[in-house]
């Protein structure tokens, strides 16, 4: 019986790891559909940003209530994993609470995990309440209809169920320990699950062993299933938040990279001797599809957990325009997924869609380039960067700027100012001093 459980466990673990690895590899491939961009400079600074922003969650504090609740769930996730390690070792080796030899340290740890589990559970309940009872507006924008909302609900309910399983497992375990049942040596202290003991105390020892096993299996299988849910879910941010903040933009937020191939063209036009006449002319300008974006833009998209802080601070969105920075990131991810799925089924020829099938020009032209979205993102996603590249495509490839902007361009070309004033009047103000 024991050995059968061990074999089953190893098989389950193997399957879970295999599928997780496979799906993460697909996401990695989809991210690398983007063009190259070297973001390996200043590693020290990058580590420190990652530690502060992802590990230390410094950008979450701007909104204190969700920050505290999220911290519970996050700390729970990080620390309860230590217990998951024990569960995995027990599962493989057929032991029970293999770390129990640590004595009082173990007791304190288990007690601490129980309190964390309770906090995670409470955190998730409040999160569900905020979403569906107080109906915080940012969770109910148009792009949240359908799967995104379902996704969030699945995540929160799964976490509640998993935490409940840990606590119930501990409740039955401590009864078995107290009854001196073989294999259930005295270990751990249970400040939370002790209150569940009365619900189970009346059962016979053999029933309790079944209960304990069921909760144990339910908890670990639940974790393995949840692990494999991650690549299909916005919850993948728990992994990508770290690399994504590592590859944060280090330059001032207002800086937008100059397109190098255009620099060479302009230099040749101006007869600059430093221009390279043999450089290949630029193939295309800006981004029409995710494959034209940088890999970092696509990583941003896969990192997004759809919290909507960006959209809630966007001046265009706040004044009723269709632009939602969160939707820009969700569309980018969905389009990368779409291309990825085609690759999975072996289709190599391009489809008739692109990123602009998902994002309308009305959204793009409503942007104020104010950087509120990028500033608000707790894990340094930069929606403005995607918007900028799509605008470049619209203007330079399609010549589809709004008419007023075309007039502005003409004015700059003709008289060096965005308005139609004669260049000779530029210093007229000096005569009025």
């Amino acid at each position: 019986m024991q050995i059968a459980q061990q074999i089953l466990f190893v098989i389950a673990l193997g399957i879970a790891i295999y599928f997780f690895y496979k799906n993460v590899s697909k996401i990695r491939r989809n991210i690398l559909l983007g063009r190259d961009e070297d973001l390996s400079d200043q590693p020290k600074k990058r580590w420190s940003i990652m530690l502060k922003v992802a590990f230390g969650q410094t950008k979450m504090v701007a909104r204190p209530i969700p920050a505290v609740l999220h911290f519970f769930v996050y700390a729970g996730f990080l620390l309860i994993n230590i217990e998951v390690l024990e569960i995995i070792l027990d599962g493989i080796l057929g032991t029970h609470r293999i770390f129990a030899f640590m004595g009082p340290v173990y007791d304190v740890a288990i007690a601490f995990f129980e309190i964390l589990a309770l906090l995670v559970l409470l955190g998730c309940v409040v999160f569900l309440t905020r979403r569906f009872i107080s109906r915080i507006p940012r969770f109910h924008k148009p792009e949240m209809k359908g799967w995104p909302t379902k996704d969030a609900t699945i995540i929160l309910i799964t976490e509640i169920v998993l935490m409940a399983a840990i606590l119930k497992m501990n409740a039955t375990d401590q009864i078995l320990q107290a009854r001196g049942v073989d294999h259930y040596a005295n270990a751990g202290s249970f400040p939370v699950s002790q209150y569940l003991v009365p619900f189970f105390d009346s059962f016979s020892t053999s029933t309790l062993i079944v209960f304990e096993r069921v909760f144990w299996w339910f908890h670990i299988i639940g974790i393995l299933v949840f692990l494999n849910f991650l690549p299909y879910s916005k919850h993948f941010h728990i992994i990508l938040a770290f690399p994504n903040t590592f590859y944060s933009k280090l330059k001032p937020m207002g800086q937008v990279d100059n397109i190098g191939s255009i620099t060479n063209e302009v230099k040749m036009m101006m007869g600059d001797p430093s221009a390279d006449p043999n450089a290949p002319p630029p193939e295309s300008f800006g981004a029409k599809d995710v494959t034209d974006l940088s890999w970092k833009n696509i990583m941003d998209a896969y990192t997004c957990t759809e919290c909507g802080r960006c959209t809630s601070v966007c001046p265009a969105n706040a004044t009723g325009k269709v632009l939602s920075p969160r939707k820009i990131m969700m569309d980018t991810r969905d389009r990368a997924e779409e291309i990825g799925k085609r690759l999975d089924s072996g289709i190599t020829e391009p489809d008739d869609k692109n990123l602009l099938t998902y994002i309308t020009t009305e959204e793009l032209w409503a942007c104020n380039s104010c950087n509120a979205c990028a500033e608000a993102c707790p894990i340094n996603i930069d929606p403005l960067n995607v918007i900028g590249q799509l605008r470049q495509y619209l203007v330079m490839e399609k010549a589809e700027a709004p008419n007023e902007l075309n007039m502005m361009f003409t004015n700059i070309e003709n008289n060096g100012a965005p308005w139609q004033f004669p260049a000779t009047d530029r210093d007229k103000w000096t005569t009025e001093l």
Partner: protein
Amino acid sequence: MAEKIHVPTVAELNAKGVTPDVLFWVGCAGSFDERAQKITKAMAKILAHLEINFAILGKEESCTGDPAKRSGNEFLFQMQAMNNISIMNGYGITKILTTCPHCFNTLKNEYPDLGGNYDVMHHTTYIQDLINQGKLTFGKGDYKGKKITYHDSCYIGRANGIYNAPRDILQKLDAELVELKRCRSNGFCCGAGGAQIFKEAEKGTKEVNVERAEEALETKATIVASNCPFCMTMLSDGVKHFNKEGEVQVMDLAELVANANDL
């Protein structure tokens, strides 16, 4: 008013064999927009008052290309940038002062890559430096105790992380700074950025500048201080939308500083 101020061009100084210590980059709004010209004049008066060796490019100045770049016209941006750089490098310009956050951002952050390396300052930090060096003092206290609110422009605030200099200046003016509900890194755009000022806004329920002006009026401040000629336009229009232009003034920091010195 004291005697007429002469604002030299770089070319004019160059002919005399002089290089200005500071190039005052006026920008298109500062040159042509009637309201923004007042900011330009205030800044020029401050510079002249302190006898700083400055000059403008005059007719040789041309749009930095910023609105083209934000709209996606990288070609036009780089052409403007490289023309401007060749002129400024030709004169050996090393230090640039500008009263426009958009010019500031692009000159400081996007020109170096194209060969234009200058020490670029926006007038908020420039004035703060002058105050810190003791060159600029305020004796009269025109604004003492006056309720002033301050609007963080996106391109000085979030885009370049300058939040304290403008507030320090207001403090030096002895004004009572009343913060807007959304301020500093959480500041709310005036609605002009991203080349929006050059076009009609997309369909929505409200204009961005009206939303921001409403917030400014809620502070009950009598002066809304700004640091950007485009914010100036947007906020002034927003205040007018509520028919409050008689009670509430939108003023650039340079204007407040010049006024406090009777310039």
